[in-house]
């Protein structure tokens, strides 16, 4: 590999670049400039994360000391395959959604607000990448707040189209803050017990400590992160927040925000606590049950929703159930399935929400009735939605199939509360529910007639369509080439599982 100067700072670059770029955005002239700048930033960041993934893949985990201060006092970034994959995913979604955003934002947000919008987007990106990158538990909280605060503002910007975005954002603000507070309370308890905030150090010093303080800390942290990742029944903020946010924001958040939180949960369970604590079994069982409940409950709600954005938001809650299910198995295969689904679901939901964004731009509504006969009016958008919808169900040849296959495979060899076979059948049954709500959408678009006297509309602008179809093609591409998803996820899962068995460091 060519040696670039400054490459030794690579682990920090994906966080530093957008962090520095954000303030410049706010002083730019409203209009096209902030968008171009944000796109550029996202692409550069994406390139950095790709490079980072490459380095970690071939060279093993890397460590970066902020300002040269050694752990546990200084803040260190540890990057192994798990976070490299998640960071790459987040940056990739930004790199696709940011270019897509221009026309959508132009129609949904006041021109004067556009610098603020893109600033918030970049800050949100910074926060998400930071949470994934850092190896310091308190630093996680800081980045969590950075991403959350910008997200509240972004959701509220949907108010120009629908005033309900304001209440949605407020609810999200309150709930998000509760979640973050719980997290920091839990962390405080752990700090009291161990005197350290560095994740690796925490792991070492927690070993053998099985007392009320640690237990309470654990409960607070799991609940806090559970709230942030919209685990049923803590998901109530999500459908409205995603439903009323501007389309581009929804596409970006749905593909990234909850995924990073899932990663964080995995990190805490497998790296920080490890397996020697009896209460971990409790958490895994809770994930198993709540995951299955979420899969069904949210799917049923989605079936009856008439607003496509909210339908997909509920579907996200259901899909989070799948990821929790994978984690709950407590095996390498289960964890692999979760990581694969994190990746694949990001592709699926980004494509779906981007497609809906195109419809909102041209027709001005995300109600199901607006989709009637869409195949005649916006064929490119329609077929993108159809393909990514099939991917959501898990029809080959799309990535959804890989996810379901991996999850079922993992389910077969587990010993959980619920018999493995039943779990497999439940996964199959909830896929059928996905087939129902996606089928409803497809039927409306493809087989119903457009409404009488519907005005002729143009297809979505090229920039949006290209971004949308890149996602759709990725949905098919990663079915055939699974090195990046299954390959990396398996290695990442093996490394994480290895850490609790004590084979050479947590990363």
């Amino acid at each position, binding site marked *: 590999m060519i040696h670039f100067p400054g490459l030794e700072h690579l682990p920090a670059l994906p966080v530093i670049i957008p962090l520095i770029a954000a303030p410049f955005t706010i002083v730019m002239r409203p209009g096209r400039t902030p968008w171009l700048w944000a796109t550029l930033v996202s692409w550069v960041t994406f390139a950095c994360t790709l490079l980072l993934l490459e380095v970690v893949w071939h060279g093993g985990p890397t460590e970066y000391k902020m300002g040269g201060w050694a752990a546990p006092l200084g803040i260190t970034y540890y990057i192994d395959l798990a976070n490299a994959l998640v960071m790459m995913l987040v940056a990739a979604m930004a790199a696709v959604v940011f270019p897509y955003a221009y026309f959508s934002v132009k129609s949904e947000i006041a021109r004067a607000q556009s610098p603020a919008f893109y600033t918030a987007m970049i800050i949100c990106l910074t926060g998400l990448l930071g949470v994934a990158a850092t190896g310091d538990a308190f630093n996680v909280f800081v980045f969590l707040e950075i991403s959350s605060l910008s997200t509240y503002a972004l959701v509220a910007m949907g108010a120009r189209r629908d005033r309900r975005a304001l209440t949605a954002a*407020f609810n999200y603000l309150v709930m998000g803050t509760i979640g973050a507070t719980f997290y920091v309370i839990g962390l405080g308890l752990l700090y009291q017990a161990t005197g350290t905030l560095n994740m690796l150090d925490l792991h070492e010093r927690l070993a053998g400590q099985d007392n009320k303080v640690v237990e*309470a800390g654990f409960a607070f942290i799991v609940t806090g992160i559970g709230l942030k990742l919209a685990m049923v029944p803590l998901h*109530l903020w999500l459908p*409205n927040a995603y439903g009323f946010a501007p389309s581009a924001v929804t596409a970006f958040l749905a593909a990234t925000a909850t995924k990073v939180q899932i990663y964080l949960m995995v990190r805490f369970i497998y790296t920080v606590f490890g397996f020697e604590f009896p209460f971990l079994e409790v958490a895994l069982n809770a994930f198993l049950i709540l995951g299955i409940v979420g899969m069904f409950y949210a799917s*049923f709600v989605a079936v009856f929703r008439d607003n496509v954005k909210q339908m997909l938001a509920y579907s996200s809650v259901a899909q989070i159930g799948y990821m929790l299910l994978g984690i709950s198995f407590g095996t390498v295969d289960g964890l692999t399935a979760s990581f694969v689904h994190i990746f694949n679901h990001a592709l699926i939901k980004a494509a779906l929400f981007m497609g809906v964004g195109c419809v909102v731009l041209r027709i001005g509504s995300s109600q199901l009735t607006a989709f009637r006969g869409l195949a005649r009016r916006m064929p490119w958008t329609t077929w993108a939605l159809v393909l990514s919808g099939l991917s959501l169900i898990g029809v080959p040849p799309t990535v959804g199939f890989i996810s379901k296959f991996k999850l079922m495979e993992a389910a077969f060899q587990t010993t959980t509360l619920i018999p493995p076979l039943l779990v*497999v059948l439940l996964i199959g049954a909830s896929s059928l529910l996905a087939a129902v709500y996606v089928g409803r959408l497809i039927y409306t678009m493809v087989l119903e007639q457009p409404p009488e006297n519907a005005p002729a509309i143009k297809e979505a602008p090229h920039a949006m369509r290209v971004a949308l179809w890149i996602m759709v093609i990725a949905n098919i591409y990663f079915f055939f080439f699974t090195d990046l998803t299954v390959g990396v996820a398996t290695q990442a899962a093996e490394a994480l599982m290895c850490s609790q068995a004590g084979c050479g460091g947590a990363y």
Partner: protein
Amino acid sequence: MPELLNPGVIFTLGAFVTLFLAAGLRRYFMLAVIAFSATVTWQMDLGNYGNLQLFGETLTVTRYDVLSRLFVVVFHIAAALNVIYGWHIKDRVENFSALAYPGAAMGGVLAGDWLTLFVWWEMAAITSVFLVLGPRSRSTYMAAMRYLAIQIASGVLLLAGIVLVYRESGSLMFEALALRNEAGDLNFGPLLVFIAFGIKSAFPLLHNWVQDSYPKASITGTIMLSVFTTKLAVYALARGFAGTGELIWLGAFMTLFPIFFALIENDLKKVLCYSINNQVGFMVVGIGVGTATAVNGAVGYAFGNIIFESLLFMSLGAAIYRTGTSKATELGGIYRTMPLTMTLCVVGALSISAFPGTLGFVTKGLIIDGVAEEHLMLIWLILLFASAGVLEHAGIKIPFFTFFAHDSGKRPKEAPPQMLIAMGIGAVLCIGIGLYPDPLYALLPYQDQIAGYHPYTSYHLIEQFQLLLFAVLAFVVLQKTGWYPAEVPSVNLDFDWLYRVPGRAFLGWVITSVAAIWHLVWDNLVRFMEAVARGLHHTHGPEGALSRTWPIGFMALFTAIVLGIMLIVTFLI
């Protein structure tokens, strides 16, 4: 890429191209695709092609051997006949399905591993649902959704079965499975696969989707549906479960029960749909017996059935096309103006009744001989009885009530030329292969057994003629004495009339009680599902407790509850 190019792929790619072609151009293109695919198949040697590497497993996209060859050949013929018959069809969706659906079926037949089979299995479900949706009314929409749900359920079961089989054997190759282990217990993985196949081949009690959905499609759609889905399942059974004893009884039952329903059914389209069940039953018996002769018979009969069943559907379709109805009560007497269609229909009817000199005779005999060779006396008798039943409902009822019977007063024009051409080709195949079966026999999988087989021996002829003559006699007697279930618009049995004829009384009792039980079960099931859906809508619908937007205090309360539970549980453990 040429490695991956098999008929399934060619048809599927072609189907997507048709979406972008002008309506007038599409039909020529479709014929060209079929011709091209036939040429590719013709030049292909037996063997495995198209190995794909997918997450560490080798997939075999094309396995072209003696068993799959026969199905690929007949699917080509059927697809071509459909395109010719539907030359006037300009509907984009139907044109798409006319290629994609046979393509999916052929892909499934050629699949050398479970995963490829699964993909095409689902493709066949998805591409065919557009045919059921064809007329796009509310009732077809509901029927199509039911159809899709059942087909997808079959796919899900198949996938679950595949995963289990894969876990156990470590191989994804699509080979024969053992339904029971040495101790005689059921193996769970193969059982799931078996049920998945069973749904598609319409096993008894899993059969209802056929009568539910097929008649709702357009005329051409029904013809297409009647060919592919069940025959793909027959192929899969022959490949995976040949010689499985359970199939003999299942198949024998399948040959019997549709006869009763078909006799009293007024909608002739539905009569033919019941006949699909009955015909597949014969094949299932052959597969269950599993000897070389019987399997030869099963797949040979599948070949024959595709031709003559389509011929019957096509001739009935022509009558429907001209008169606009498929009710026995509203048809009749139209032989005067549609003599050609009538003649072709009679050829199909003779063939399905296995009249000597037709395709049915030279293939069905193999199955019955296969059963006889194994000394399965009871099954043999059931098959003979069922053969007589076929003659009653498909061989006589269809042509008689469509073209003769009471004069409906309708004087439609003769069928359009494209339909006559397609039916003509079908009829020529029926009689041609019937008289000179060697080309078909050369395609059968077990060549050693077929070498010494001669359909036209005096024993076969006498057996068949006795059967046919008595069945015809029965029909004539029943018809003349007025005891044959009259063409009435509803299922309506006159009990006074049944008392006088004890034999028929028993038959009537069987019919009514089976129908009553079935209706009871089905109605309760439907009512239950409706209640469930209402309940779900009540709780999960937009205004339901579980999905409305909760005040923020409640959200916080939930969080507190979850935290509390987490704390209590971690403290207690």
